[in-house]
């Protein structure tokens, strides 16, 4: 999202809140306008759906493959509809409520496509959309597939895993360069374009990751029929409008957070119904306070992203400057700060680049999250927090509980917990003892953490560097897990007076400070794997940090 897009989205909020006390329309010329606004307020649900659909197309970047910037958002809508069909296997009544939604979606898509015929309006998409006939054929294909899927999957929940697998395969295609390039070649071939020009950058599917996470979660919830938490019933039976609005909710489209459907839908339903007169004894659930709070959060996010992060980007470690950092003398500049030795000087500047990257990625990502949360708040949805001062945590486990929290929680809920539960309930692992350092429970934790981190790493891209980054963190998490376990056992056997609780406050504070510093540096060094495209360059940078290598 750029600043213009953020401003437009924020301005749309003006439509959603009635003017004046109790939304009473004004007299005179303003009367008609106010009536329109009240109508819009009454149709908040539709506003969110239409805005999200338009945003899906507007935010999609252009591609050299003809009309791909139209078809990728359309594919997102089709996938979402398909998943709704197979999850909720709607009955006749549900289909009846879905008809207006389908009509609106098709109308919006047709409207976007029709802009190709009106030059002054063209185009909300990055390039000219395809002709209406092609779009109609596309919509018919989606309809046929959805109908087929509804028949195929009706009452067969376990078959939904095949769709999960399909989404994972799509992930791999989009994250593995060689596969993306092949995919691009296929698309180019279908379009009658030169396949030799196929490039990884051709296929940039906006929001696919987050859309897929939400769809996989919905599918897995259906397969496992997750029981509701006490007092929190799972809201089954989301209407098509609700489901699509949840999956492609535009504030959270580009950078999350990944909200859970059951939590999101409560805010949504609360918001879309606030046009009804509230009982006198209950406050309005959403109002100007939310708009003000949301606007404040957006401003904070804009500052973090477009001021701090973008400035830090100038000096942050990247594939080009990592190879350019040289010792003084090599480029003729005098040794500075009296550092004398070239290697030391080089090491210090390399540290500066690494620190800059660490803070840049935090401000960039958390800035986007602030913007998403702020926009969401304005539209009545309190999206979950994604960051909680992650660089001020005293250990790696707490770091991962405060960094991209919604992603960590997603992987915990849909991978780590199921896999460790499955391993624990499985029969004994014959080659591992029940006691000692390498006992079965330790192995399960190690396996769970390594594979979870690997999946998180591979989600960013299927490269050796992301694997190295994953292993780096997995080892760190495992080491911390074992250390905590060791400390717990030692404290249990020690004299209570020597336990942590009885340590001097100053000593404890010092220990916490050192832990925070150590954790931050572990994470910052881990970013070297993340930021650079090759393992050899990463190792070179690690060497330079300690004055080794030229």
């Amino acid at each position, binding site marked *: 999202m750029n600043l213009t897009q953020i401003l437009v989205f924020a301005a749309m909020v003006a439509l959603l809140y009635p003017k004046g*006390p109790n939304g009473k329309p004004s007299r005179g010329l303003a009367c008609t306008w106010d009536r329109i606004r009240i109508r819009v307020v009454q149709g908040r649900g539709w506003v969110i759906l239409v805005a999200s659909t338009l945003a899906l197309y507007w935010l999609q970047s252009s591609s050299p493959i003809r009309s791909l910037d139209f078809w990728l958002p359309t594919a997102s809508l089709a996938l979402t509809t398909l998943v709704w069909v197979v999850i909720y296997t709607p009955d006749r009544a549900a289909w009846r409520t879905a008809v207006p939604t389908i009509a609106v979606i098709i109308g919006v898509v047709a409207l976007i496509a029709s802009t190709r015929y009106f030059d002054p309006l063209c185009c909300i998409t990055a390039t000219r959309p395809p002709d209406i006939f092609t779009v109609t054929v596309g919509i018919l294909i989606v309809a046929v597939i959805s109908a087929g899927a509804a028949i195929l999957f009706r009452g067969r929940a376990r078959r939904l895993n095949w769709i999960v697998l399909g989404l994972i395969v799509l992930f791999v295609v989009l994250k593995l360069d060689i596969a993306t390039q092949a995919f691009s070649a296929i698309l180019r071939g279908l379009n009658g374009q030169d396949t030799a020009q196929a490039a990884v950058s051709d296929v940039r599917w906006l929001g696919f990751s987050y859309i897929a996470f939400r769809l996989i979660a919905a599918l897995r919830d259906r397969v496992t029929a997750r029981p509701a938490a006490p007092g929190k019933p799972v809201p089954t039976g989301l209407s098509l409008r609700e489901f699509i609005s949840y999956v492609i909710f535009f504030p959270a489209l580009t950078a999350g957070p990944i909200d859970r459907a059951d939590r999101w839908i409560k805010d949504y339903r609360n918001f879309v119904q606030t046009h009804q007169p509230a009982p*006198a004894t209950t406050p309005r659930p959403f109002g100007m306070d939310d708009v003000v709070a949301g*606007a404040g959060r957006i401003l904070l996010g804009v500052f973090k992203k477009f001021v701090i992060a973008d*400035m830090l980007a*100038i000096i942050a470690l990247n594939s080009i400057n990592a190879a350019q950092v*040289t010792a003084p003398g090599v*480029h*003729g*500049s005098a040794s500075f700060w009296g550092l004398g030795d070239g290697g030391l000087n080089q090491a210090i500047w390399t540290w500066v680049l690494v620190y800059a990257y660490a803070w840049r990625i935090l401000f960039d990502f958390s800035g986007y999250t602030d913007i998403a949360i702020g926009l969401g708040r304005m539209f009545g949805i309190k999206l979950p927090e994604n960051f909680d001062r992650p660089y001020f945590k005293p250990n790696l486990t707490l770091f991962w509980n405060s960094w991209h929290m919604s992603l960590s929680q997603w992987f915990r809920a849909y991978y780590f917990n199921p896999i460790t539960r499955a391993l624990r309930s499985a029969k004994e692992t014959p080659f591992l003892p029940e006691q000692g350092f390498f006992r079965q429970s330790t192995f399960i934790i190690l396996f769970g953490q390594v594979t979870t981190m690997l999946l998180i790493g591979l989600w960013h891209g299927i490269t050796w560097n992301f694997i190295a980054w994953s292993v780096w963190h997995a080892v760190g998490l495992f080491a911390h897990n074992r250390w905590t376990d060791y400390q717990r056992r030692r404290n249990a056997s020690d004299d209570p007076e020597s336990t942590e609780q009885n340590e001097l406050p100053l000593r404890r504070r010092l220990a916490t400070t050192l832990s925070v510093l150590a954790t931050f540096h572990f994470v910052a060094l881990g970013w070297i794997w993340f930021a650079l495209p090759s393992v050899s360059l990463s190792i070179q940078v690690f060497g330079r940090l300690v004055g080794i290598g030229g």
Partner: protein
Amino acid sequence: MEPSQLTGMQAATTSARWSMPIRVMLKAFVLFVVFNLIFSVIDPMTVLGRFSAYNILFPGRQRLPYGDHPELAYNVSVLNLDAMLASHELMAAPKSADEFRVLLIGDSSTWGWLLKPTDTLAAQINRAHMKTSDGRTVRAYNLGYPIMSLTKDVLILVRALHADIQPDAILWLVTLESFPTDKQLFHPLLQNNPSPTRDLISRYGLALDPNDPQFITPTLFDRTIVGRRRDLADLVRLQLYGVMWAATGIDQDPSMDYEPAAIDLEPDITFHGIKPPSFGPRDLTFDALTAGKQAAGAIPLLIVNEPILRSNGRNSDIRYNYFYPRWAYDQYRAMMTDMASAQSWRYIDVWDLLPQGEFTNSAVHYTPAGAKLLADRLADSITHLSIPSGQLGKINAP
């Protein structure tokens, strides 16, 4: 409580909810306008330009900031003369007793287009460890800037001399392309610094129009924070790129590829629209040279007619290179020699010093080896700059 009372309370609450953001926005707007107006009235860009992290947090640049592709060059072009100079290593430290400080001014060849900072003419002079006759070590500072305009050279020189930099000599590398009157104010650096440029025109009587429409006179809005947002962002970026300069020593896109300077030339005999046989009295701004000499005052100034590429390709019988028809360049050289002689300027003409192979993408941009050849050629002249011009004749006499 009566329902009517509740409705009234609700209305009051809703009204209060509305009034708060409106008040916040109103106050923010008023503060925004006030700050912008104050900024516009004070116009603190000059003062802000002097605040620099260069020479404090990271080393000063070896040449003035200029960058067409900042993200690759770790360098950015700014139009704030004070910021440009503040980022230069020249502003770093007081001059040591044994330093013979030489300022180099000139165009892109002096700045070192396509050369690393270690390969520019200034760097080659420093590498030669030249000693003056009184034993001081020559230390050259590159104040070249990639624009061909003598007025720009004088502008930078005057600004630099205002700072306490104690130069012992000035080396001014010139070429004909910097002389045409129509080139003097063509660049945004001059156009966006109307006040100091007009000051030059009036103080030194330059034959330029002080009301030239190319000058950009900022309006009240242009001087606000909003109006100056680009300049302010560039100042910040210049500081940030200082980190990358310190870390890498790069100040020009190292991946920059180029086409070699043209050898086969067009059969065009005009120069900036001027036809042979000779220049008119107002075609070239020789008075800018006089202005530079006056600005230098007692500081010895050596004017150098810099090397150019001499083509042997098509139409080389009528043109030396892409820039110059033969008649124009020959006449320019003759005029320079006459003027230097008449004004008793220290002048050296090295136009044919470098062979064709030592030029890069232009008829005036040379290779590192070319820069070294030029430095070697100028060595004697530079070291002689420590000798007062009155005694120079005796030394040069056979």
